[in-house]
């Protein structure tokens, strides 16, 4: 096994997931077997190869930039808050933050 329970809990923490103990035990072999499979890529020598971060095609102008002009998006603040689980005074409301030790 490449992965340990500690690794799974660490990664879950980074990803803001609070897994139950049962979930950690269930996921561990699954995640491990997938990661093992991914090792296959090491069979390839990629020292001379450029990474491909985005599939971009040549075009005359660069279409990815536009003038920095604000456009109308939401009709108003109410629309932006419409799906909020809790809101008030024009803001999204959330539980308070406690300082970590």
């Amino acid at each position, binding site marked *: 096994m490449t992965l340990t329970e500690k690794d799974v809990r660490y990664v879950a923490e980074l*990803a803001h997931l609070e897994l139950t103990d049962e979930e950690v035990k269930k*996921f561990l072999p699954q995640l491990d077997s997938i990661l093992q499979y991914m090792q296959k890529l090491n069979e390839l020598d990629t020292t001379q190869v450029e*990474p491909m971060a985005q599939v971009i*095609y040549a*075009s005359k102008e660069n279409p990815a930039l536009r003038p920095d002009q604000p456009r109308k998006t939401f009709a108003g603040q109410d629309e932006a808050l419409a799906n909020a689980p809790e809101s008030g005074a024009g803001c999204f409301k959330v*539980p308070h933050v406690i300082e970590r030790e």
Partner: protein
Amino acid sequence: MLLTRMDPTTLTIDQIRSALTAREISAEELTRAHLVQIERKDPEVRSYLSVCGERAVAQARKIDGLIAQGDPLPRLAGVPVAVKDVILTRGLQTTCASRILENYLAPYDATAVERLESAGAVILGKVNCDEFAMGSSTENSGFFPTHNPCDLTRVPGGSSGGSAAAVAANLATVALGSDTGGSIRQPAALCGIVGMMGTYGRVSRYGLVAFASSLDHIGPFGRSVRDVAVTLETIAGRDPKDSTSAEVPVADYVAALDQDVRGLKVGVPNEYFKGLNPEIGDNIQQGIDLLAKLGCEVVPISLPHTDYAIGCYYIICMAEASSNLARYDGVRYGFRASEPTELRAMYKKTRNQGFGAEVKRRIMLGTYVLSSGYYDAYYLKAQKVRTLIARDFVEAFDDVDVIVTPTSPIPAFKLGERFEDPLQMYLADIYTVTASLAGIPGISVPCGKTRGGPRLPVGMQILAKHYDEARLLQVAHAFEKAGGFEIA
């Protein structure tokens, strides 16, 4: 056209147009016929998550208004469409088949949806999929699985299983789905219909809930190549709201359909046939033989990095997904866990309760491969392998015009059969992830049925180089006209 003899839910886009123009049926009657069909058949198929009857009838009445005035009809006037629930539809529930977005009402329309409605299409509702488009069977939906209309005990494929099933069961004329690693092409194959993914950037992703941003596409499903061509033409094209959408002008796909395929070179990559189930392989071979009979030259080719595509694809898509799904935290929209009284605890409980198992697996693996100490070994490595895979295609297209492969190594499997082993599920994507990694367009067309036991649809995939959608549609259409869909 003697429409009275034809079931209105089996009509093509062109037949709808003729029938409306000839006043054989009204757009409202056509819409209601579909809504009734959904009520009758969907309890078994379970393709729809929500039906928007009011919006549909209102749009249909608008079209009927144009007909009454004798005005020219827009391209998709009255055509009933189902939209995958990862695509935003203003004012309607858009859940991504996830409990974390169970009550989310989209504040805007995706560009693809806007373009369909401007062209007169009637949105019937939102259809089921794997949660956040992660899966190959629609069994990962946070609500319920969809059933394959060809055999209700089997999966329709995924992640756009609802879209494929709706079209296959005549519950919509065409549907929109999304394809990241095969999520349009594979369900099209498993349900026996046509599904197409254009070049990356061909269709705007504005309003498509992001899964893996360098791999996601929106694309159409239909029962004929022509319907898919018309739909793609309607939704494709530059959108200033999607910075990755291509500047390249949209070709006339419909004009391309009837062009002769004689002399075209069809590449057959040996890697896609190694160890292939003969139930599938035989049909694809017959499909290739048919193309040869039509005058195509069949050329054996090699795509040497094929074996590495699954590993490469899953590292990249999981990494991108872990980033894209960070936004679901219970703050601005969606589900929020009510018990926690502290912010970070709220994030963690919300996400753990709101997301299903497959989504959690992918977020965790994505986080892992991007984390300090592992980034180079996994993510950077995968990006380099991606270059090699893309290069395989560039080189192949120097020698051939299109490439033909099976779409899926297996036909529709039974619900629950592959659910327990995630890696097994991933390995079945082997023929479709390569095109996504390379950014090239691909289409799946029906290629007969299996003969060993139950008769299940087999799909044949055709690939072309960047922006050569017209070529794909040309070959697919010739194949359809020559009887390819019923080849076995």
